């Protein structure tokens, strides 16, 4: 029974993976990728790892792919042009890699012949929520915390990058002479603050805005 399920879901995973790579419409690729994730989750269930399966569906299929699909929908990405000509030099490399992968698979299949196909002892509680939780908060606490700090860094980094690009666009110019600026232009944190800030000279305005006045002047209109 479990062999039959494995064949069904493995077939689905491979089919979806091939569809993901071969589709020209990016949205179809994304949907195929969701199919791959869900098939893999089903295989995890048959391998007595229900927690991993649930997390796979919630995090990958439910959260990350929703964002990907949102981006594809909102940007209205056109069909990808066939780029065979530009990437032609990669074909020998890909064939070589595929050969190595096949050799590895053959080696694994060959070496597994000599080991029993059923693991000895009771392993049924390895994939349960309790044992994973105990593992994460005792033996593997340091890697767990380091990973969370890493994710936090990524979030803060993305926030700061996104904010900086919205404060001043890359083609901002400093107008020569005396001028009045709104507070929320000068200070990115004062969102919606429209109190006027008067500058006496061009250099002062450039300083307030954080733009290099000299290089700006040299650029053509």
């Amino acid at each position: 029974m479990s062999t039959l399920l494995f064949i069904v879901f493995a077939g689905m995973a491979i089919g979806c993976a091939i569809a993901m790579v071969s589709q020209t419409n990016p949205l179809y690729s994304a949907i195929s990728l969701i199919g791959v994730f869900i098939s893999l989750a089903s295989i995890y269930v048959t391998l007595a790892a229900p927690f991993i399966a649930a997390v796979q569906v919630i995090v990958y299929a439910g959260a990350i792919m929703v964002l990907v699909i949102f981006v594809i929908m909102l940007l209205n990405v056109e069909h990808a042009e066939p780029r065979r000509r530009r990437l032609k030099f990669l074909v020998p490399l890909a064939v070589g890699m595929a050969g190595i992968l096949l050799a590895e698979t053959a080696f694994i299949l060959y070496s597994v012949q000599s080991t029993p196909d059923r693991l000895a002892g009771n392993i049924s509680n390895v994939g349960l929520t309790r044992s994973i939780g105990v593992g994460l908060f005792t033996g593997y606490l340091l890697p767990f915390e380091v990973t969370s700090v890493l994710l936090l860094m990524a979030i803060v980094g993305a926030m700061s990058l996104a904010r900086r690009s919205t404060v001043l666009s890359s083609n901002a110019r400093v107008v020569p002479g005396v001028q009045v600026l709104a507070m929320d232009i000068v200070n990115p944190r004062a969102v919606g603050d429209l109190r006027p800030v008067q500058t006496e000279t061009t250099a002062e305005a450039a300083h307030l805005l954080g733009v290099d006045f000299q290089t700006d002047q040299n650029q053509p209109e």
Partner: protein
Amino acid sequence: MDWNNQYIHSLVLIVAITVAFLTIMLLVAATVLAERRVLALIQGRLGPNRVGYGGVLQPFADFIKTMMKEDLVPDQSTKFVFLLAPMIAVVTAIMAIIVYPFGPTVTLPFLGTFPLRIAQFDVALLYVLGVTSVGVYGIALAGWSSNNKYSLMGGLRSSAQMISYELALGLSLIGVILISGTLDIYQIVEQQSGWHGLQWNIIYQPLGFILYLIAAIAETNRVPFDLPEAETELVAGFHTEYSSIKFLLFFNAEYINMITVSMLATTLFLGGWNGPGVAQVPLLGVVYFFAKILFFLFLYIWLRGTLPRFRFDQLMDFGWKFLLPAAILNIVLTATFQFFVGS
């Protein structure tokens, strides 16, 4: 009968799934009718009362009428995804049902003793959340594949709302998980059987229950959070281009979602099938279970007849700036309580 035999077990599972499916479908029909009748009562009207006794056949008449309509597919739509979207919506809605126990272990004449549940597994709660999170695709893809600006905006609004409130929904359940120490819904229900079947989790988790209820109403796109299909403002949102059986699937999915979130609230906070007298008469548990679900469904209709709709920015502010921090506060409070007092 030998219930442990593999083939008999498979057969029993198929029968159980069929019974659960039919029950849910009948409950959907009853809810649709009840919604119209109760709303009419609230608004001082009569409502549909001509088809069958008191209008009981009205949902079936509507079903046949909708089926007979022409199945339109927009010319410029993405055909495959257009077909796929309502299927995703209804399948993910229905898949969540298998984890809920309808009653305790009962003994029936000629059939023997068996538990009234379809599946019991370690991560039942995570399974429910996972299935719900996949359900967003049904709406997002429906809006996109129609190739209609209004449908796309409706789909985006709806999926943004569902993603935002999914977080608060998940976090509001963590308090219950902390108290029970398990993700298995069947065990969570069994733990609430103390005090003659009245030791419900709502006593320990009042804040969690209220947060869950609000998030669940938003998650199912009901009043006062029904912006995705605000019928007085939008042209029906994401399902503008859908007609006939495909529209019916979306319609069904919404009502099935209402029933499943009511089931989750019942099992996690209101003791599931627990109640006075269940220990003596196990079949009473089924009555309690459905009575609690019907209470939540009535609450949905009652709210629809009472409350006006949120504006979209109010909706987002409420979800992210009030509901989410409150859910985190609930987790902190519960964890502190469990650490110093509990167990």
